[in-house]
């Protein structure tokens, strides 16, 4: 709904690599990593001393020109050990992630693409590996294969591989469900080239991100082993340096700092590189912070205050009056998009108003404005919305909550996603009732039961105890309608209430809405794209296009003699009056230039 308002156009030149190079997190962490790699590679050239040469005079020596970071408890040069230690750490990380990728990724590809038995077995192996505490397993490996670093890092790689396996598998399963993979299969593209052309490209990025995180884990684990003194005691490593510092911490507290910083900076760079890359790939970097949108909202509020107040002109008697409503969203580039541009309408009790339009016309935004349910990105709402004596736009959240349900209610489009999956229907209904009326749980349950009967649910007691996933879409919509009328509202706003339903269920829901409207004397607003729904239930129709109302008329008049060209086009697009298997449109049919 909101997505259609601000879909930024991107060009293919907007490539991942180029976007990555524009992301500061990626650039900085990448440079830091390059420095660490350079230090490791050039250690023999850069290190002022041998990392293992112990000089008695330099034991715990303070920093000096000869020993920029001083000497350790055995009189070895700290800077040199730090540089050589980078080699150990980076090599450890590399061995572990290569192992993890080699073990996890192919297994994940096969398991995800072929599923079946291999998937079941591999999944079980992964869960076994995940249940093994890493350090304990590495102690076993050290017991069995000795203290050299490579075997333990290979073992660690195997222990880290389930993450790669699961990631690859779930990505493949998701991609496989995409219709474009089906289309490729229909086109006769072989499974192998489907994996390479369509699947591997999608899997690659999450794998790279996971690898950078896993490399960090491996470096920390290797340091931990070295710290415990399990590992190659001759090779200089950051973990062994922490151990040395720990044993001589009173005399030279700074010794603890250097290896800690080295590990911290390297691992942090890896982690930030991973999260920066994932931001680039998922485009979450472009998402605006709510703080920024709050600031914009504050600016907009000042503007609204400065603007002359719209005075009510007509239809003062109506239950709900909307006058000159404007809604603006902030775009990523700081400009604003106006999605509702001066909309005015009114609706009275016992009346049904249809707001009709195609996607992006602003019809849902109009409905959400009335309910006060616009997302935080909607930075400016101006005009007037009045419910009898109340000026809704000036009400705070608390007062709005008070009138929601009790005076103003909402029926959403997709019934399933609009119920909390964690609670029973009964619990959710009781919650709503008790939020507005002082009733005991028992009395509220009684009310809920009566409401379910009212919306013609056959077995209300069973429904009360059911979870949303246990009932059908049509029944869920009835439940939502029951909740909407639970505190006897004056106005009911239904946003595409039947769009997600089958036609036979749609008919039942429309019949129910009409009946409730008559019995409860509701002011009903139905937002829809379906002209059949309008013809069935509405008394008056407001046609919206590009954020404006183009025509508001009695439903019979509108259908008989549409005045605005857009209304004519819309009515002309229906198929019921066209001879079968003939063209609907006039002129050249095959141009897509004006399509929304």
């Amino acid at each position, binding site marked *: 709904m909101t997505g259609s308002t601000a879909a930024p156009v991107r060009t293919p030149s907007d490539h991942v690599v180029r976007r990555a190079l524009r992301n500061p997190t990626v650039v900085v962490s990448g440079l830091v990593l390059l420095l660490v790699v350079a230090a490791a590679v050039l250690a023999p050239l850069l290190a002022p001393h041998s990392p293992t040469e112990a000089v008695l005079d330099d034991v715990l020596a303070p920093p000096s020109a000869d020993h920029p970071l001083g000497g350790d408890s055995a009189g070895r040069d700290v800077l040199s050990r730090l540089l050589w230690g980078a080699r150990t750490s980076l090599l450890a990380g590399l061995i572990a992630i290569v192992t993890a990728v080699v073990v996890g990724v192919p297994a994940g590809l096969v398991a995800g693409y072929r599923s079946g038995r291999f998937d079941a077995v591999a999944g079980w192996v992964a869960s076994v590996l995940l249940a093994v505490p890493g350090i304990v397993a590495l102690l076993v490996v050290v017991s069995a294969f000795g203290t050299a670093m490579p075997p333990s890092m290979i073992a660690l790689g195997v222990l880290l591989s389930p993450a790669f396996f699961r990631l690859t598998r779930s990505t493949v399963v998701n991609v496989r469900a995409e219709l474009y993979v089906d289309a490729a299969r229909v086109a006769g593209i072989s499974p192998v080239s489907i994996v390479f052309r369509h699947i591997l490209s999608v899997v690659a990025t999450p794998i790279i991100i996971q690898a950078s995180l896993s490399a960090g884990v491996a470096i920390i684990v290797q340091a931990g082993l070295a710290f415990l003194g399990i590992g190659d005691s001759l090779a200089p490593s950051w973990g062994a340096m922490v151990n040395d510092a720990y044993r001589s911490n009173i005399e030279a507290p700074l010794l603890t700092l250097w290896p800690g910083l080295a590990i911290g900076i390297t691992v942090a760079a890896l982690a930030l590189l991973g999260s920066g890359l994932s931001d680039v790939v998922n485009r979450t970097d472009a998402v605006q912070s709510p703080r920024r949108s709050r600031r914009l909202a504050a600016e907009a509020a000042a503007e609204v205050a400065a603007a002359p107040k719209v005075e009510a002109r007509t239809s003062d008697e109506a239950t709900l009056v909307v006058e000159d409503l404007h809604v603006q969203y902030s775009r990523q580039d700081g400009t604003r998009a106006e999605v509702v541009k001066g909309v005015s309408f009114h609706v009275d009790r016992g009346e049904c108003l249809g707001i009709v339009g195609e996607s992006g016309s602003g019809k849902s935004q109009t409905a959400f404005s009335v309910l006060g349910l616009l997302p935080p990105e909607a930075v400016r709402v101006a005009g007037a919305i009045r419910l009898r004596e109340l000026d809704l736009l000036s009400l705070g959240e608390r007062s709005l909550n008070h009138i929601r349900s009790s005076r103003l209610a909402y029926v959403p489009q997709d019934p399933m996603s609009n119920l909390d999956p964690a609670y029973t229907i009964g619990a959710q209904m009781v919650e709503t009732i008790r939020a507005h009326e002082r009733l005991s749980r028992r009395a509220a349950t009684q009310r809920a039961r009566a409401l379910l009967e009212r919306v013609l649910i056959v077995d209300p007691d069973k429904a009360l105890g059911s979870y949303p996933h246990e009932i059908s879409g049509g029944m869920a919509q009835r439940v939502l309608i029951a909740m909407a009328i639970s505190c006897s509202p004056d106005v009911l706003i239904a946003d595409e209430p039947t769009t997600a339903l089958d036609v036979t269920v749609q008919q039942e829901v429309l019949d129910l809405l009409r009946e409730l409207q008559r019995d409860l004397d509701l002011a009903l607003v139905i937002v829809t794209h379906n002209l059949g729904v309008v013809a069935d239930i509405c008394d008056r129709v407001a046609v919206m296009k590009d954020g404006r109302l183009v025509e508001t008329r009695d439903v019979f008049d509108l*259908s008989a003699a549409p005045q605005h060209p857009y209304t004519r086009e819309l009515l002309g697009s229906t198929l019921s009056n066209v001879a079968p298997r003939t063209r609907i449109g006039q002129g050249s049919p095959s141009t*897509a230039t004006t399509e929304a």
Partner: protein
Amino acid sequence: MPVTTKAPLLEVHELRVEYPRAGFRRGSFVAIDSMSVRVPAGTTLGVVGESGSGKSTLGRAILGLAPITHGGVIFDGREITHADARTRRALSADLQVVFQDPYSSLNPAMTIEAILAEPLVAAGTSRAAARARLTELLDIVGLPADSLARLPREFSGGQRQRIAIARAMAREPKLVVCDEAVSALDLSTQARVLDLLLDIQAQTGVAYLFITHDLDVVRHVSDEVVVVNRGAIVERGPAAQVVTNPTDPYTRRLVEASPIADPVAQRARRAARHPT
């Protein structure tokens, strides 16, 4: 429709599709059972039903995307019930698909050129010939010529559906399965895409298996219609007859429940349904 005595382009005979249930020894779920349909060359067969009726499964089974456990599919004289990948590759020249969701049916990472060229390249078309065909295809579906270098996300829903149609038409197929191909589109866009499909049919003589939940759409595009409910065909016949004069109770319910855009007629129907 002229009565043809020769074999139809597509003949589906007593088809059953069963999906194994998740988990160990849970048996299987029968999505469709003993479904038989015929699509003569150059005609449109409409398949209409509600969600879960099995209408999409029928299309997927014909395309080799659903497990057939009984019955057979004969396409253009060839038995393709359990065709392997190689046969499917050969078949793809003549049998194609347009899916409902114009967002998930195009690989977001591929340019329009790569998407449209894929079936041609797989068929061994030379690069130059493919290039020429792509320009032609864009023209047929009414997209600007500079679309080739762009990515799917730069196009609207209707335009994406035109791209999907162009991909399906790339090798001039004999049959295209349209699975809810216009259901996700706005009314005016839907009208233009339907016009496009009818135009292409008039020019190339392609046949459609048109799967939809929308009675208006099916009435508009189809020669013959089958109505599907709970995995079985409940009624079949010429489109106009099935939609205006249904005999099966389920079809009647379906027709009566589909609201029409004319308020006078719709309210008359409503009154007839609820005599007060």
